[in-house]
């Protein structure tokens, strides 16, 4: 055996053990969290770092937080060098530039010690239900022109000191948020989850010895980098470009151009350039560089090297070049609360470009997703409530497969059950189902949009809507048709007023908001769709007879 190498079984066990610790960290967080977004929607992430804050493993959770992790940990180490930390300490940060691009995402990073020496860090992020600011949920887009309107900004602070929560810091936080019980519960859940992981990590180090584990870390980073380079080298060299548009950044505002130029050098590196995109916008929708990088990394992984566990090594060959001041690289204090809806759109834009290089791995554009917050004071309890919803619609058609419905696309979140919403918030959900004929026609059809009708059972509340694709349709590829546009309708049984996709307004008891998400784009020409598939769509209600005739020239007779 070579002096510096680790035998293959030890390496495998350590690597899988790290991933399993990162996964368990997430499961603990989910199981101890208080907010619906974290405990039901899986809106969080986890990671494990070496003693220099180099990321070795991640749990399979939300990529936006995941891709930001390496940068967050290194910044935290600038504020708190390892020799200033003590066992039981933990650092809290939510700054949008340092973190994952908006205030609701709080990171907790905990050093792990063996015999008084830092041997690594465990970390998790979680989307808090509220961080204060202009509207419930802290994701208001329109009318928010600087980050200081978006709530409490926390630069790295020592939130836990030698095992004791700093009650003074906690009081500052809880005094600034609408849902102090849930935020407190989730911050403690993050701490609990880190503790669980730190115990397991220390146990692993004790079992194998610091030296062996650190040699395994080196091998993990080198291998994952080499594997990513090999995968990237297989993509034909060249520059691939694509453009799409966000509807706008609020009522009466212009579209935002999202443009990307992706250059593969054919030797194992790739560079993303988003500079041709619009400038930073004066509304809370901008994508900070950590967030832009996170989704670029995610897209490359999905296209080129999907099954490789993500480490900092896999991210090394992926470069970003983004003009400062551009929509995808704003300067603080650009507002950004509503940036969650960008995650699919950043991927879609990259997907459009990579379709030219890797046609069999690309898909029609996703439906968008809807992330509205409805909040106010619950009449029954006199306490604040925020209903944070995650509405997920369709995947685009893929080579060989139709788009799925009701699945989370790029962010690994889950549907929040109706029973959870109705039990914890003064709302009733009247309708939740597919909308036929909304998926883009194609050889492989795009997934249908989803409709969710929510009635307010409270005297009043603030709706802070967060959607898109009310103007620009999700594109189809290789001849596939685009998905149907989204609509948001207030009181469909009444006058059916159309709501803007990013507006904030007061609603009252009995108001029903009908969120109708866009359909996803198709793949390939509709004429190439096999007739059995069309008949099945008609029989199962995805496509009506009329639409089947119109889009595919299908008829019952032809089928017989």
């Amino acid at each position: 055996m070579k002096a510096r190498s680790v035998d293959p079984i030890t390496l495998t066990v350590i690597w899988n053990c790290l991933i399993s610790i990162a996964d368990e960290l997430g499961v603990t967080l989910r199981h101890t969290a208080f907010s619906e977004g974290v405990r039901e929607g899986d809106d969080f992430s986890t990671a494990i770092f070496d003693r220099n804050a180099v990321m070795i493993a991640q749990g399979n959770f939300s990529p936006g937080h995941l891709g930001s992790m390496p940068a967050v940990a290194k910044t935290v180490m600038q504020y708190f060098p390892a020799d200033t930390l003590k066992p039981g300490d933990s650092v809290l940060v939510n700054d949008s530039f340092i973190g994952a691009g908006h205030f609701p995402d709080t990171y907790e990073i905990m050093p792990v010690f063996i015999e008084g020496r830092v041997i690594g860090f465990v970390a998790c992020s979680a989307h808090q239900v509220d961080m204060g600011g202009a509207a419930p949920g802290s994701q208001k887009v329109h009318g928010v022109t600087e980050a200081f309107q978006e709530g409490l900004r926390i630069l790295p602070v020592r939130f836990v000191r030698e095992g004791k929560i700093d009650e003074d810091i906690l009081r500052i936080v809880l005094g600034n948020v609408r849902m102090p019980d849930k935020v407190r519960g989730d911050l403690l859940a993050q701490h609990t989850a880190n503790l669980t992981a730190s115990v397991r990590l220390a146990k692993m180090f004790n079992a194998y010895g610091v030296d062996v584990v650190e040699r395994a870390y080196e091998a993990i980073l080198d291998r994952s980098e080499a594997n990513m380079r090999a995968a990237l080298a297989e993509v034909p060299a060249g520059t691939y470009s694509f453009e799409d548009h966000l509807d706008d950044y609020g009522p009466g505002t212009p579209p935002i151009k999202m443009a990307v130029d992706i250059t593969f050098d054919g030797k194992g590196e790739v560079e993303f350039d988003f500079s041709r995109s619009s400038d930073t916008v004066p509304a809370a929708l901008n994508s900070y560089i950590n967030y832009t990088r996170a989704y670029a990394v995610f897209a490359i992984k999905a296209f080129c090297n999907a099954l490789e566990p993500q480490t900092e090594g896999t991210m090394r060959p992926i470069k970003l070049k983004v003009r400062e001041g551009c929509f995808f690289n704003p300067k603080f204090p650009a507002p950004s609360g509503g940036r969650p809806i960008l995650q699919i759109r950043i991927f879609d834009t990259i997907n459009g470009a990579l379709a030219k290089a890797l046609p069999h791995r690309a898909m029609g554009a996703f439906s968008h997703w809807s992330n509205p917050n409805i909040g106010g004071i619950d009449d029954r309890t006199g306490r604040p409530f925020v209903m944070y919803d995650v509405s997920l619609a369709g995947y685009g058609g893929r080579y060989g497969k139709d788009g799925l419905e009701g699945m989370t696309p790029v962010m690994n979140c889950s549907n929040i059950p109706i029973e959870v919403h109705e039990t914890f918030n003064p709302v009733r959900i009247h309708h939740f189902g597919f909308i036929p004929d909304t998926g883009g026609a194609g050889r492989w059809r795009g997934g249908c949009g989803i409709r969710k009708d929510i009635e307010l059972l409270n005297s009043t509340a603030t709706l802070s809507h967060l959607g898109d694709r009310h103007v620009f349709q999700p594109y189809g590829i290789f001849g596939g048709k685009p998905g149907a546009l989204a609509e948001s309708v207030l009181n469909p049984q009444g006058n059916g007023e159309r709501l803007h996709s990013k507006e904030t307004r007061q609603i009252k008891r009995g108001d029903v908001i009908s969120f109708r998400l866009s359909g996803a784009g198709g793949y390939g020409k509709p004429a190439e769709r096999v007739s059995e598939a069309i008949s099945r769509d008609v029989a199962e209600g995805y496509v009506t007879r009329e639409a089947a005739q119109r889009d595919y020239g299908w008829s019952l007779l032809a089928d017989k």
Partner: protein
Amino acid sequence: MSLDLDSVDRAIEEMLKAGRETVAVSLLHAYANPEHERDIREQFAKRAPHLLVSISSEVSPKFREYERTSTTVTNAYVKPIVDRYLRHLDEALAARGIRTKLFVMQSNGGLISPDLARDFPVRIIESGPAAGILMSAIVGKEEGRDQIITFDMGGTTAKLGAIDDGAPAIMPTFEVDLVRYKKGSGLPINVPAIEMIEIGAGGGSIARDNKGMIVVGPDSAGADPGPICYRLGGDAPTITDANVVLGYISPDWFNGGAMRLDKQAAERGIKRAIADPLGISTEQAAWGIHLVATSNMENALRIVSVERGRDPRHYTMVAFGGAGPLHAARMARSVGIPVVIVPYGAGVGSAMGLLQAEPRIDVTATRVLRLDAERSGREIGGVYRELEMQASQDARRMSPGREPQWSRYAQMRYAGQGFEIHVDLPAGPIDDDYGQRAIDAFKQAYLRRHKFLDLEGSVEAVDWTLVATIRSNGRAVALGGRRDAAEPRRGKRLAWFPEVGGYTETAIVDRAALADGNRIAGPAIIEDPDCTAVVLPGDVACMSGKGHIVIEINSEASP
């Protein structure tokens, strides 16, 4: 809100028209209020009494509509089959004058009565594997080993499970039909079950040539028509055929000689389907089939061990099922498991486990209670009085005249959390300070699990469970044992071991001839009527004092 009976009638009409035989009913919030679901069931009883109805408030009275519905639909899906099967079995046993009570194993390792199994068949989905794991835990205990990987290979599938620190790994929910064993890719089932990975590899798995590569399974010739060598009409080569050709299975002593196998037919089949198309010899083709099947199972073994954080070097494999001990040594060697145990009765391992299991009734009520040290005792007492009535009834149905042993547990959390932890509640009378004792039990369990306590948080319980276990007097015998054979068979035959150059003269040992402490160096084949264990060159098998064969795996030998 009242139930719209017209819409129920329309649904019943549609079901009748479509000729359905089973139906699942799942309404929002039925875990809290089951009335409408019960009304719907009554309406079915009136209008369509022949339909089997599963309602979510009984099958899985738990919060979260998707998981509850998926569990209820699964229950409805298997209900007609289990219903027919168990009814026929019961009648057939009665007709043969067998008067011992019939029990059915559940996925969690406890027994229930057949009528409960017919009502809730979703609880018995993993019953076979659960029994096998119970057996392995007992074998482990007898041999002083508490970290065990279980490997069960029969005619159609192979199953791998784990025992950590002596306790079978049990999950509160599980998923069926996973893709690449990934969490979230299957259908969630809200029923406690043993942790297990199943792959389509068994003695009957069919081998074929796929563009120059040998592919084995997941389709199986089963027992009928079975492998070619059975001469029952099977014409596709299987893993068993390959094992006969390789000399691992004796053609003359299969099933203790009750069945003769046709080795020549197996050779012809493998030559035709694999060797000729690939341009290799029949022996090489048979070896290829064996190797591909073994490596498929190795992948599953890696998931259950290394991928889930279990270091194989600290685990023992218990191998059973008709084909398990034949493939076990090679799999163990490839991942670094140092010891394989072939238990007494390995060929019928799950059945041995069944004999050890105890009748067990779990009754659960969902009642969200925020616990208060002073006031909660009475409420908890009320919940458990109801549960006890229900459970005593079931227990009497299962084992009349036997007093069950009671235990209690609850699913508890800090008020505000969305998931609960399992908390064993104290035994004894439920008096005024039981609330405080329940809170203490939660805090202990939470601290043990999460290493952290929120001193200000209030505690609530969601599900309350009462367990009635009926102890079996003296039925729990040791598993180890010995089959007496007047004239133990011994001999030699050629068997294929590539590490020593192919066909090699190999010792054949009758398991019945082994005495405590006997050691056999590989290559060797140890035969029992119900299974065959292969000992590889470099490994050593030893008969333990308990009657189990313990094979020490030489990990330095070539895999």
